[in-house]
């Protein structure tokens, strides 16, 4: 997965540069989490379902799906252009996408609905900023009530959103403690450490309670200019200088 990380980060950079833009910070923070879910050989993705709640992380999901063979890599540069199967926010029109999304806070509820009465694992990826939405907490209490042990919520905690740090916009307190109080099994991991992520995911597959994996990640991970800089939440027309800089950064991996 380490070598895959470099390859897919370069694909992600190319997608954002050649297509004219995309949600860069969160895509780079969450990519490793998606790689672990899709290529960590933990889940049978013909039966288990990956639900991306934060639909603006589309660029990261698309490079993962292209690598998995759902569509050719050449499609990536058509991202968010008219007529492309790769919409700006994810849509089930795209092969491999299980949930159309873009409005934050809904994916965990949808995942809970999929999980009820099913023996398959439902893996939902949400973000820390998304937890400002009340519906996420409605879903959290619901999943605990129905003992949805087959539900896994991975929270990408990159600590930034479009207007600044999440702490500045809306202090979150101790997210892990909140989930524990809601009756979930909680594991905190370094969201860029594949060993830690996969062992947390494996542990979550044997649980009687809904599972929350708090993944601490770096906003704009791997890119010197974008790291922890909320101005790179969504970039339009990345300059050639920054593109070359990003390539150098990623090739050092």
């Amino acid at each position, binding site marked *: 997965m380490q070598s895959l990380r470099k390859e897919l980060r370069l694909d992600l950079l190319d997608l954002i540069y050649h297509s004219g833009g995309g949600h860069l910070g969160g895509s780079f923070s969450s990519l490793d989490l998606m790689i672990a879910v899709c290529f960590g050989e933990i889940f049978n993705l013909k039966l288990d379902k990956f639900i991306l709640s934060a639909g603006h992380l589309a660029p990261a999901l698309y490079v993962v799906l292209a690598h998995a063979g759902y569509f050719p890599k050449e499609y990536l540069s058509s991202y968010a252009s008219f007529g492309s199967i790769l919409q700006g926010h994810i*849509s*089930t029109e795209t092969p491999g996408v299980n*949930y*159309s*999304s*873009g*409005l934050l*806070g*809904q*994916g*965990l*509820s*949808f*995942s*809970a*609905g*999929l*999980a*009820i*009465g*099913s023996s398959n694992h439902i893996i939902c990826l949400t973000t820390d900023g998304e937890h400002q939405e*009340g*519906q996420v907490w*409605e*879903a959290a*209490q*619901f999943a605990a009530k*129905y003992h949805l042990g087959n539900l896994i919520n991975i929270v990408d905690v990159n600590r930034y959103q479009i207007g600044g740090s999440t702490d500045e916009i809306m202090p979150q307190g101790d997210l892990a403690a909140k989930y524990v109080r809601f009756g979930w099994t909680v594991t905190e991991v370094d969201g860029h450490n594949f060993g830690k992520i996969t062992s947390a995911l494996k542990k979550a597959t044997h649980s009687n309670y809904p599972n929350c994996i708090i993944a601490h990640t770096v906003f704009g991970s791997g890119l010197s200019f974008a790291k922890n800089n909320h101005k790179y939440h969504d970039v339009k027309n990345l300059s050639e200088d920054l593109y070359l800089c990003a390539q150098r950064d990623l090739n050092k991996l």
Partner: protein
Amino acid sequence: MRPTRPKQTLTSMRQSFGDTLYQLAKVDPRIYVVDAGLYPSLFLEKFKQDFAKRFIEAGVAESNATGVAAGLAKNGKVVFLTSFACFSPALNWGVIKQSICMNHANVKIIGSHAGLASGDLGATHQMLEDIALTRTMPGLHVFAPLDAVETKKIVTTVSQSHLPCYIRLSRPSSENYYDSKKSFTIGKSYLLHAGKDITILGYGPLLTSVLSLDIRNWKLEIINCSSLKPLDEETILKSLKKTGHCLVIEDHQKIGGLGEAVSHLIATSGVKVKFAHLAVDNSFGQSGTPELLYQHYGLSPSDIEKSINNLLSQKS
């Protein structure tokens, strides 16, 4: 005009909904309820008791309930999402858009206590914007049964189809006018009374108040537009061409309801019609009996009668 049959005992749409769903669930194991904390008001106690595994109680959290319903539906279930119309499809509109409609989830949204008819509950609960909200949603069908009999027909029909839809129910019990032998067809209207002078269009119990009007000079053609989307444009236009006069009455805001749909139809079809529309005009409701509220908001039988006479006394 007088009712075509003797006075009957009043029956409840909500009870009809609960009873019908119970009977359907007995033979169709795909039927689920996701309830947002109001199941007693929708007569679902028996469903809850006898089909406990298929009764999901999400509490008074409509947004989550909607997402859960969509997820369940994507696993092949036929999901009835139950609440009052003022909560669902109102508080959860964005969830209906994304989780149900954009994901093509087979969810039937049941919104009870719609309109001024919910009476003493007052403005917050008198949902007068639901048709407007749901009509605009791509892929969502919208139905408003006339009475308890049609409620049964509509619930049975939609349970066998894959479409996401909204069904608007009223709180009070009312007389039944729908012919129990007649089936309900999506996209078809239902002729309550044939006439030649004026076409009266509406839905729900308010429309039945037209049947009790004592109008002898004019022959009223009364059409129940319970299938609000898709609307039976063909039947409506045919009637309008015949009568040349149209009155739409609805327990809903003037903006976004059936009246707007019909006036758009008239404008785009080019048919020459004198048109009037009785509905709530850009204001909220308040507490009171439905009868007093209809008087206050211009929807009483005498308002309807006055409107008919005004329209028909105009020179075409």
